């Protein structure tokens, strides 16, 4: 009857991904001139919205950022500021 044999059908269709960027009221903006790439924002971001690349260092992606503001509160150089989202 079924082609697939599975214990539970969870995951049969794909991945559950919610568009959490719509929750955001304030967006974090990083001022790269102040950033020293200490990676504290990277380690504290609950959504893993902050990434690291060898060329750019730490940078913020906005696809899933919920705008909690932990990165701005914890940044030792105050390089991240929360700016209100406007349409």
């Amino acid at each position, binding site marked *: 009857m079924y082609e697939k044999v599975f214990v539970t059908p969870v*995951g049969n269709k*794909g991945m*559950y991904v*919610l568009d959490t960027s719509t929750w955001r009221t304030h967006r974090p903006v990083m001022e790269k001139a102040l950033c020293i790439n200490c990676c504290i924002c990277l*380690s504290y971001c609950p959504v893993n919205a902050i990434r690291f690349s060898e060329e750019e260092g730490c940078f913020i992606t906005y*696809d899933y950022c919920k705008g909690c503001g932990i990165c*701005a509160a914890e940044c030792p150089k105050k390089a991240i500021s929360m700016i209100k989202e406007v349409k």
Partner: protein
Amino acid sequence: MEYLNVLKKNPDMVSPGVSACQGCGGELILRRVMQVAGQNSILCVPPGCMAGSGVVGWNYDTGMKVPIHIPLLDNSASFLTGVTHLYRRLGREDVNLIAFAGDGASADCGFQSLSGAAERGERILYICYDNEGYMNTGYQRSSTTTLGSRTSTTPIGSALSGKQQAQKYVPLIMAMHGVSYCATASPWNMKDLMEKVQKGLEASKEGFAYLHMFSPCPTGWSFGQDQTIQVAKRAVRSNMFPIWEKSCDGYKLNYVNQTPISIREFVAGIGKFKNLSEEQLDRIQRSADERYAAIKALCGI
């Protein structure tokens, strides 16, 4: 393992968008744990915040890039016991078997299965993210809720002023089971947390490993969503949550608190402690001091 390399390079094993609240400590811990554990893992998440946020899947979709199971609230440790026996029979002892449970599913409902698995020495890494209550259903009290907390089952009013009983200290109970590795960790010290996950995964190949992690909850505890790490920091600095580990080398205090802050400073700005009386503050202060003294004595300091 250099923790910064893990942070920078290891892929995220959780779905990028899950419906955990803004500033959730549990989501932060789950993502870090899975970055360390990697692809060769099987996860078991009992009902709770992380299961409710869609990590275990929703409508035939999965929320993880590794196999994940949702058992009942009280049987995650016994469920993984079965899985670990199967994998040992198959000769796959390299697979990391991880339970990621809240404090309700570890300290209250799931305690008998957790205690049983720990005593039998099953090869599991059991992680408890302690947000001090049943947050998923609207913050009911649990046995790890701090004294005097405002919860939906212990409200503030004329008859009752928050939770009347003291907090149960679970990590020491688990260490006394004689497990191969037991530790507490706070997201404030991310290096320490990730190294302990690594040590726990190694220890779980020989016996039971238990990690107790402090997970502040902005929604339930009523504090600003950007204050999660600061609350975790104050909990460690005020000796409410000492960071220690117990391995085959004995007990070790990982953060020696030279200048502890008072409980009054810890509770400042946290909404659930807003109506604490002086007597309740004294009781919390006394239990925190007692706890730190007991841990220090165990560590031989």
